[in-house]
């Protein structure tokens, strides 16, 4: 039973902080409606159970599938197989991603149907597929990650000049939205499967990361190109923010359950079909191993459904309510501080973050501890949410005022930090902006925007996920710098002696 207890402990430490902060706010600054509060607590309980089951499922289901696929693709030793397999895998996985459909629906709405939902889903999926193909080719041809990222972000900057400011926010949001709770573990495992075969273990360690980062640039580039082609520089429609709080306690949970189950089945289906095809053609695993993976997929499904039901039915309305009432307080300092703290605790409960931090620990044999990574991520995301709220408060401040220097700093840092951390940092950008942020924090920011005079819920609401995807790049690369400085100073102190003693 020890495994279950330790996993539950990990998840408790992840979910309790946010629960505690919300309860604290309830008793101090923002008293919440009784029904909302009860639903929030039920939601938190469901999230704890769901996240635990989900993490087991990823461990024995999604990760092994991804790793084996990566391996068999690389073993083909033919470039066209790598490219076509990458394109196909990326395309079908992202087309099934529920977050992408939500984002595409919003874009459809705000452009009054000029850019249809279907077209954006397909174009973004092609973008992600193409970039995953390039990312896999990079690993097998040993092209350094930082060089590829420099080229990709140069393209993004060039395109950004021609993109309208509103769409700038949407395109950077797309990068976060498409790397959801299912896609991230799968893409991470795919990269690990290919790079784990490398003889050079330092190289193998570095190349285990970076594929998520490359994939998410695909989404940014795709949306920007769409905007330039269609020349939609105005947002005409409006997002209807109707939230008539349901008065029943269990109603929202029961309402969300079938909807989310359907979405997750669709999202898992391509992975299952791909697995069956690969199993027939190349894996040929024993029935015991297949049984294990089947259980893994079942756990992934159950866990993720529970998690999302908890977040959507229990957390979302609380986020809006807190945002609204805190932003209407006289002192604006409160809303900034609360934004920082909420960002800090929310990212801890993000499913993909747990998958990434465990993978980091495994790949580096425990050299980079997961708590350290988690801590840096928390600070990064906390700052991101606080900065987003400041942007709503200060009318003149635009998103690119943050994005341009932010990306300039993170691209410059690439050349100084250990290359392992470049991959980890850019991957964690896509990882941090998962379902928890996209619902709870987004709801909080939109709630705040509604209560602040002169703020536009639509324009200010977009761009928050872009910030959450940006700050970890800097936070984790700074962590890399600290690691570098530390290992240098211990080497100077007594490198030879130390080497001799650690046999």
């Amino acid at each position, binding site marked *: 039973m*020890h495994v279950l207890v330790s996993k539950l402990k990990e998840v408790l430490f992840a979910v309790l902080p946010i629960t505690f902060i919300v309860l604290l706010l309830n008793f101090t600054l923002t008293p919440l409606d009784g029904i909302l509060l009860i639903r929030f607590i039920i939601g938190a309980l469901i999230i704890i159970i769901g996240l635990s089951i989900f993490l087991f499922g990823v461990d*024995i289901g999604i990760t092994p599938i991804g790793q084996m696929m990566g391996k068999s693709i690389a073993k083909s030793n033919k470039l066209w197989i790598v490219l076509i397999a990458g394109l196909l895998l990326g395309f079908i996985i992202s087309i099934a991603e529920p977050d992408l459909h939500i984002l595409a629906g919003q874009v459809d709405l705000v452009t009054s149907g000029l850019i249809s939902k279907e077209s954006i889903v397909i174009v973004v999926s092609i973008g992600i597929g193409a970039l995953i193909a390039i990312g896999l080719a990079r690993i*097998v041809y040993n092209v350094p990650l930082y060089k590829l990222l420099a080229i990709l972000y140069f393209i993004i900057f060039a395109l950004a000049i021609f993109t309208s400011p509103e769409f700038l926010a949407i395109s950077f949001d797309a990068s976060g939205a498409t790397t959801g709770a299912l896609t991230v573990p799968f893409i991470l495992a795919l990269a690990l499967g290919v790079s784990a075969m490398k*003889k050079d273990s330092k190289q193998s360690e570095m190349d285990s990361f970076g594929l998520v980062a490359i994939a998410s640039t695909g989404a940014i580039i795709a949306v920007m190109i769409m905007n330039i082609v269609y020349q939609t520089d105005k947002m005409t429609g409006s997002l209807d923010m109707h939230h008539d709080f349901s008065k029943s306690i269990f109603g929202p949970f029961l309402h969300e359950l079938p909807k989310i189950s359907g979405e997750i089945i669709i999202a898992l289906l391509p992975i299952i079909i791909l697995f069956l095809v690969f199993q027939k053609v190349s894996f040929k695993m024993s029935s015991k191993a297949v049984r294990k993976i089947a259980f893994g997929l079942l756990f992934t499904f159950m866990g993720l459904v529970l998690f999302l039901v908890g977040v959507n039915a229990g957390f979302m309305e609380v986020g809006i309510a807190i945002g609204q009432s805190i932003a209407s307080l006289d002192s604006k300092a409160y809303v900034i501080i609360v934004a920082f703290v909420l960002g800090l605790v929310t990212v801890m409960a993000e499913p993909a973050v747990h998958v990434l931090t465990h993978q980091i620990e495994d790949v580096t044999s425990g050299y980079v501890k997961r708590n350290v990574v988690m801590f840096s991520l928390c600070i990064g995301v906390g700052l991101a949410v606080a900065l987003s709220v400041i942007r709503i408060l200060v009318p003149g401040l635009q998103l690119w005022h943050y994005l341009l220097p932010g990306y300039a700093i993170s691209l410059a840092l690439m050349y100084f930090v250990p290359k392992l951390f470049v991959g980890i940092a850019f991957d964690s950008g896509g990882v941090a902006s998962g379902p928890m942020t996209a619902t709870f924090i987004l709801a909080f920011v939109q709630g705040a925007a509604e209560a602040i005079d002169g703020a536009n819920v639509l324009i200010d609401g977009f761009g928050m996920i872009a910030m959450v995807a940006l700050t970890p790049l800097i936070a984790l690369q700074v962590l890399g710098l600290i690691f570098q400085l530390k290992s240098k100073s211990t080497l100077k102190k007594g490198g030879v002696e130390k080497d*001799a003693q650690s046999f």
Partner: protein
Amino acid sequence: MPNHSNHVGFELVCVIVDFGIGSKVLHTAKKHGISGGTVLLGKGTIKNRLLEFFAIDDIRKEIVLMVTNKETAKEALVQLDQKFKFSKPNHGIAFTTDVGHIVGSSSCSSDEIIESRGGDIMYHAITVIVEKGNAEFVIDAANEAGSKGGTIINARGSGIHETSKLFSMEIEPEKEIVLILSEKDKTEGIVNSIKNKLKIDEPGNGIIFVQNVNQTVGLYK
């Protein structure tokens, strides 16, 4: 120069604990005279019907390897046992094996290879190296012959004919190392069972070797 007639003798101390405790073990060991060590990540197995049914019977482990002289090893093992309570179930295990020769450790240097001593040996450490994915079958085969479990370590390596190149990357086949402790009289049965199940006799299917264990803590009959 040390007196050569007075053989000190060295031992490899191997401690297997739950993930996250490895560094603490190393820290405690250093306090009691051991000069350093290496921590590896491994996977352990647990016996529990329910967990096996749900296929979540893997658990992450850390393996700490440390080399030191016999006296220090004995003392350190006692201290480690006191601190980490290996003698209680599920608190990890520790054992020591003889080391013939050691180079590169300033605190324990030796000029000549020391023959392993005889004496009453109760346990054997069986090490099996196989292709990745086969470790599970090794554990199964060992359990059939009466073993109580084992630890799996991911590794890479290859025989003389195996290294190859895919695209621009040189690759090395992935391996798994399985570490099993067995009572002396069961060793042969376990080794035979693994040998037959995985056809270790045929080339390219892996290797098995057995070492004598001097001291153990945390093992149960």
